[in-house]
């Protein structure tokens, strides 16, 4: 009777920390939707946080955008003191280089190859992660409506690999000193 086995796994995962981590290691993740009700307010807060690796891909991406396009410099700078023209002059280069970097790392392309503003039909098995429907949603898919945004997707994901020491893991941009 697999249903009992499933329930048994379910409750063991919920109440037995060690078993849960074993299941996780197996790559088996119990359906989160099924767990939701019991879960509310009962998340075991005592679980030791898994030790996060000191260097995170997000830092590597930030460092890349800073190095290639000075992205962090421009978003960290208060804009209040500058005229639109000044902001525009600096932004042109930053945006160009950000775009080239994203293109190289992620090869970003529209999700649907269709013109915005035109009428567009979703597939029958419309996936909420790919399609966000707005307005009067009635009836069964496929839905037809005006394409407001063609969406974006990464067609590759080639982040640089970082191999530095732990104490530099959170450095987004190094200090620069020019020696005379």
């Amino acid at each position, binding site marked *: 009777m697999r249903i009992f086995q499933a329930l048994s796994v379910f409750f063991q995962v919920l109440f037995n920390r060690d078993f849960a981590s074993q299941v996780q290691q197996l790559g088996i993740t119990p359906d989160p939707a099924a767990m939701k009700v019991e879960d509310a307010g009962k998340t075991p807060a005592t679980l030791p946080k898994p030790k996060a690796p000191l260097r995170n891909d997000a830092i590597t991406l930030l460092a890349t955008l800073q190095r290639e396009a000075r992205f962090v410099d421009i978003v960290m700078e208060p804009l209040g003191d500058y005229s639109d023209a000044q902001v525009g*002059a600096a932004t042109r*280069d930053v945006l160009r280089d950000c775009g080239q970097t994203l293109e190289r790392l992620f090869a970003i392309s529209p999700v649907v190859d269709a013109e915005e503003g035109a009428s567009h039909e979703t597939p029958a098995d419309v996936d909420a992660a790919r399609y966000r429907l707005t307005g009067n949603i009635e009836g069964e898919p496929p839905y037809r409506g005006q394409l407001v945004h063609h969406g974006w997707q990464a067609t590759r994901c080639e982040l*640089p690999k970082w191999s530095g020491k732990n104490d530099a893991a959170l450095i987004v941009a190094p200090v620069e000193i020019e020696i005379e």
Partner: protein
Amino acid sequence: MTAKYILGIDLGTTNSVLSYAALDTEAADVKLLDIPQLVSASTIESRTSLPSFTYLGTVDEGRDGAFNLPWAEARTFAVGRFAQYRAAEAPDRTIGAAKSWLCHQRVDRRQPILPWNAPDEVDKISPVTASQVYLEHLVAAWEDAFPDAPISDQQVVLTVPASFDPVARELTREAATAAGLPAGFVLLEEPQAALYAWLATTGDDWRKMLKVNETVLVCDIGGGTTDLTLVRVTEEAGTLALERVAVGNHLLVGGDNMDLTLAHMVATEFDKQGVKLNPWQSVSLWHSCRAAKESLLEEGGPEKQSISVLGRGSKLIGGTVSVEVDRQSVANLLVDGFLPPCSAADRPQKQRASGFQEIGLPFESDPGITLHLAAFLAAHGESTGSSIFPTHVLFNGGVLKADTLRSRLLEVMRQWCEGNQPTNPLEGVHDLDHAVSRGAAYYGWAKDQGGMRIRGGVARSYYVGIETAGLAIPGAPRPLRALCVVPFGMEEGTQCDVPSGEVGLVLGEPVQFRFFSSAIRKSDRPSDVLNAWEEGELVESVPLEATLPADADVEDAHVPVTFQSRVTELGMLELWCVSTNTPGRWKLEFSVREETES
């Protein structure tokens, strides 16, 4: 083990690229290799090209493995994109354009001289070693990606500029062998490789696009050099064939010169605003100018564009300075400056620098590429005084992505046609940044699978200088004659005995011969002796030398010899001295240990 892949390597002045194709396929499927490289300390990214830069770090920089690669540890130097960044930040420790140094005759290219003018504490390396370092990186990247296909078992085609002289080719071969390329790798001229890339995209349709006796000019404007080649369409046994009929001189002018020129103009504008740029900003300006050049020179590009130099510190917007440049003035500056309208009879100006000339790369004194082109076409006309008119042109090199530059070149050449068929661009898909490497891989594939090949042979005739015997007149050099040892078009894999008056060599002592080449004299045969020649007809290269072992059995210290020349299957030129009365045979080597003028 038999080769599974053919690798095409473009060892470029500013970027190197590796393409490959599997050999056991019906049609050539050429792909680009992703090359892992440092983009910052401890940070590795894969890119389709490897900037040909080397950064020699300080002892501390590499200590914690900051320059490590998947295949190398404890490095003290970095190659590729990171080194290219550092070229701006620490120019004294960065090597660029090693390839241009490789064909620079006034320095010893095997000596550690780069970075040029670096401080003493930097461990300099030679131009040959720098080339070796780039090739080693490509080899390692290949073996990292294809561990089951070691490069020593694969077929490799390495490209060199058509204008590279035998010495530069020999030094390239040295670097390549040291980097672990298989001994049987083939050298291919870059403009030919670009043409192969085009042939690969057309399939067999090129036979409909070209006709017998038409001529294709390959105009390859790279970052630092311009390389010209003429290919004629011939007929062999009823089918069309291609034959490379001429190559141009090595011209040290290219896209980087254009960017610098624009940067200079913009810097003057900044100066008027009272803004002084520091060296870092100047390099950043160069980068912005390259981007501005590309967008302003594009068909339908903006009328005006502002060029900015971002603030150096974290206050980016506050420190940003900008000037506005308009399309017209940039077009005037770059298009008229580098591709001036001219007649077929115009020639580049030669400005001899008077007195002391700084050693360093010998950049062209006249940046007018159209003038060099006019001279090239005139030098290879059917008869003296008439130019050859190419019916087609194939553009190559990143600079020529700009429409305005391509249309100016076409416009100028069409004016030269004088009623002949006007020059047309070869139609097809062009990947200007990677064409040379792709073409090299396609060539290798076609060679293996029996596809189309461009015939060529050597692109120059070669001469050995012989001093005439006779009374020495104090203060006057003995008259020099030039003995033709390699005829124009001599094919790969052939050799040639040069019947000549015997030359006496002294045993046990080094002998030297002066060595000349000509891209123009195409009808000289081996053993022809020139007593006089026009200025510019013959170009002197580095001398050839050999040390003949002293032979105890031979009483006479003089050995009479004749010359024998060989062009190897790999495209290398070799010259031998053959004794006429003993079995001895000695290879002459290029002497690059020439005294530098100082």
